[in-house]
């Protein structure tokens, strides 16, 4: 692991346009607003958030599937954001992906050999025999074997399909793999097999991961750093253990508290301590101020006026919350709630 960033996202904006009936005009919708992230070589960054938080938009922008509308994404010597979605092959081959749904991420009409060797066909001049040898190597890396080469995806279980997807992502020896919810469609007993596999390959091959997931506990296991997103903003970022054990942002705390404990008695105590939250009205996108202020128990008047900047957190990382401001501005947290 070196200190030189492999991927550096600065002030990234991603917007989508609501097409009106005739294709003219329409509203612009901000999926990501001013995101800053750094991934170092061989490091895993966990990007956590609920649906609509913009985490997948960041993944898709890094992968060149969706153009950035502002900011930069430095990858080595190039700016991915400036290339829009047209990456040269040398860049493409160094960023690969594993997607969530192993049932639709593999082409049903292709054999495992064709799926695993497809990146080699596109990017290398290897002949058929060489590609096949490499495919066998790759399958071994994911604990599958040569006999699986001629089979079709439907003959595999979800966990095995995800292994095939990982083998294909490893084919070009990328520097960065974007993992978009890689285990959330899998059974509990197979989830950890895939997590372990990803972890081992990372150690061996020195790959960096951008791990997108909704489950903080799961992300915590294999991430070096964790970033938490809420409505397009990165609200907290820091070393994995610090974010998981000592969350600084109220949203990160809420996210951790919302996962039920495996100890029913402890869960009952926690539940009793918590008042029943009123149902949240449809999410309002805050144009100014903190995006979380409508749901935040410690919201203050200033939260509505300004987006809180990223304040440093003890133990490493930052959180965008006025609670961490050196000067509270004379307000009591919670009075604007």
């Amino acid at each position, binding site marked *: 692991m070196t200190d030189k960033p492999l991927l550096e996202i600065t002030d990234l904006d991603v917007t989508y346009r609501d097409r009106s009936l005739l294709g003219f005009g329409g509203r612009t919708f901000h999926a990501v607003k001013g995101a800053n992230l750094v991934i170092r070589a061989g490091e895993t960054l966990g990007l956590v958030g*609920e*649906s609509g938080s913009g985490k997948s938009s960041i993944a898709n922008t890094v*992968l*060149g*599937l969706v153009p950035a509308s502002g900011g930069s994404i430095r990858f080595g010597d190039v700016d991915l954001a400036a290339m829009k979605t047209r*990456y040269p*092959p040398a860049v*493409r*081959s160094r960023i690969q*992906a594993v*997607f*969530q*749904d192993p049932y*639709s991420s*593999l*082409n*049903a*009409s292709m054999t495992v050999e064709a799926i695993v060797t*497809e*990146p080699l066909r*596109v*990017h290398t001049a290897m002949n058929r025999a060489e590609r096949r040898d490499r495919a066998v190597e790759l399958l071994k890396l994911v604990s599958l074997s040569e006999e699986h080469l001629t089979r079709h995806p*439907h*003959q595999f279980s*979800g966990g095995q399909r995800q292994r095939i997807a990982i083998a294909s992502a490893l084919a070009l020896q990328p520097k960065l793999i974007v993992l978009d919810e890689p285990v*959330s*469609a899998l*059974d*509990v*007993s*197979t989830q*950890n*097999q895939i*997590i*372990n596999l990803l*972890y*081992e390959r990372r150690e061996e091959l020195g790959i960096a991961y951008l791990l997108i997931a909704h*489950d903080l*506990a799961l992300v915590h*296991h*294999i991430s070096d750093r964790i970033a938490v997103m809420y409505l397009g903003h990165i609200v907290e970022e820091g070393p*994995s*253990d610090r974010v998981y054990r000592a969350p600084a942002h109220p949203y990160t705390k*809420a*996210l951790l508290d*919302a*996962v*039920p*404990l*495996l100890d*029913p*008695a402890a*869960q009952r105590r926690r*539940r009793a301590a918590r008042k*029943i*939250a*009123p*149902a949240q*009205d449809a*999410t309002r996108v805050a144009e100014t101020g903190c995006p979380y202020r409508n749901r935040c128990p410690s919201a203050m008047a200033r939260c509505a006026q300004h987006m809180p900047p990223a304040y440093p957190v003890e133990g490493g990382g930052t959180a965008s919350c006025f609670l961490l401001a050196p000067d509270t501005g004379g307000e009591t947290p919670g009075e604007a709630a």
Partner: protein
Amino acid sequence: MSIDTKTMPQALPSGRRRPGGAPVLIGIAVAVLLLLALLAVFAEWVAPYDPLRQSLMEALQGPSTAHWLGTDDLGRDVLSRLIYGCRIAVIAAAEATTIAVLLGVPIGLFIGYRGGLWDWIVMRIVEAVVSIPGIMVAIVIIAILGAGLHRAMIALGILFSTSFLRLARGVVLAEREEVYVRSARVVGASDSRILMRHIFPNIAPPLIVQVTLTVGAVLLAEAGLSFIGLGVQPPQASWGTMLNTAAAFMDFNWFLSVPPGIAIILTVLSVNLLGDVLRDSIGRGIAVDADPRAPAARYAAELPATAASAPVPRRDDEILRVEHLQVMVPGRAGGEVPVITDLSLSIGRGETLGLVGESGSGKTLTGLAILGLLGAGVRATHGSIELNGRDLRTLPRSGLEEVRGNEVAMVFQDPTTSLNPAFTVGSQIAEVLRVKQGLGRRQAWARSVELIDRVGIPRPAERAGAYPHELSGGMAQRVAIARALSCNPSLLIADEPTTALDVTVQQEILDLFRDLQDEFGMAILFVTHDLAVAADICDRVGVMYAGEMVEMAGVDALFADPRHPYTSGLLSAMPHASDRNPPLPTIRGNVPRPGTWPLGCRFADRCDFRIAACDRRIPLTGSRRQVRCVRAGEPELEAAS
């Protein structure tokens, strides 16, 4: 997570005909087409007469030894004309179909993938062509090109290309959103490569069907065009011209229409049949079981052993009691495969029983079996389902419908699909009240607004008039819960009701369930794959594995002291159960598919504590705490959990 919906279709009949289902028919089809090809190539040698040789003396004769199929109005030999007609048929079908495919598929692929202006322009032209009767379009094209077989076939090719174009476009529109296309783009495949290598193979199955249909249509269209003198020119022989001759002389010799008619029917049927077989053999989405027949047969022989399971103790406040339930699905190679076996459970008033398990464990089917909503071909074959003392399995259909909604209601996983998008949420609740409780329109509406308020939705009167897509997932699930509770059921079945929701919303919904149960006192059967959710909401938890209950206990006892190796394996595999740093604990292997279950303990192949006794069928033992493991309670297992 939508685990169950993904794997269940593999166990259920797919509606697809089995390739090799009728080998004799396929043999005949191949033979017919082979014969057709041979006759077309070797017509000069095979035909007994020159097809154009006239003999007015022998006109309109029936079949004889000299003329096996008789003669036509000009005394020409029908058999010879039929054989030469094969050549025309082959040329016509091949020519027109090839033109249609070569023209329609690439354009369809292109506009489907590119979209935008190209798509708009081409589709408007296609719509214009399709809106006019096909034969008229063909006539117009022939008017431009001139008459004759080849020109007519070009015209037909252009005409039929529109259906290939729309087919290809439709498939591309659907496929280009698939994740595998995104994967291909990440790999760096060019657009043309994605189209040709990744998307095109997925067009093959519908394409083959379309080709076979087109071949049939071309043969008929050729006959039509020849009839009006725009296709094959007399005196040349084609099946179409022969039919037309036959039509003219129907009164004199009815037999004339039989040979070309049979030839056309046989050819079209053979092509269609062969196309079906080809499409099936491409094998998209057919799961392969080890041998679904054998385990089913084996299982049936073992049935008596299941009776050894301890009965669930009866309780006074029992709402639901299921005993020794067995559910079978049709196997892929015929026969039936068990998906739930020896399942017993009971739920008391105001109690929440969790049903926990991974995909294929049968937990969702259990809920559906109680409601009598098993899919086609799936049936409960043994056991009883008693709700408030009545056995639902013996009820007639009308009785079951009466029970559903009134006594038992269900909340599904995905609220956005379980609510009908065409109606406001208020009217969907009101409808249940009107049908089940006979309330008037106004009364029902008022009550549904009350219910919407009760499930914690702000501004209920306004929200009742909203459509499902206007609500967030959490709000929609609240509406679904309100609808389920509208008739005050004594049992609520909740099938993964929080799985599609974010964790912070999940927390709200779980709180709501608990709150509503305090007020309404219904029993809840809570189906979930998430042990943490079960720990939060349930009073008792049943753990299912491969179609059977492996452990059932009070929630505190189960989490503090799991007795079955599978339960403790699952618990330690939970993400927040262990501390950082992989390797994380796993359960090796995969959940076996229905039909491939081991004969003895179904978890044995993945279990670290397996002994010889595990190869026999294991009954569920115990009364308050039940476990299906011969080694439960042994110190070695206790230490491991």
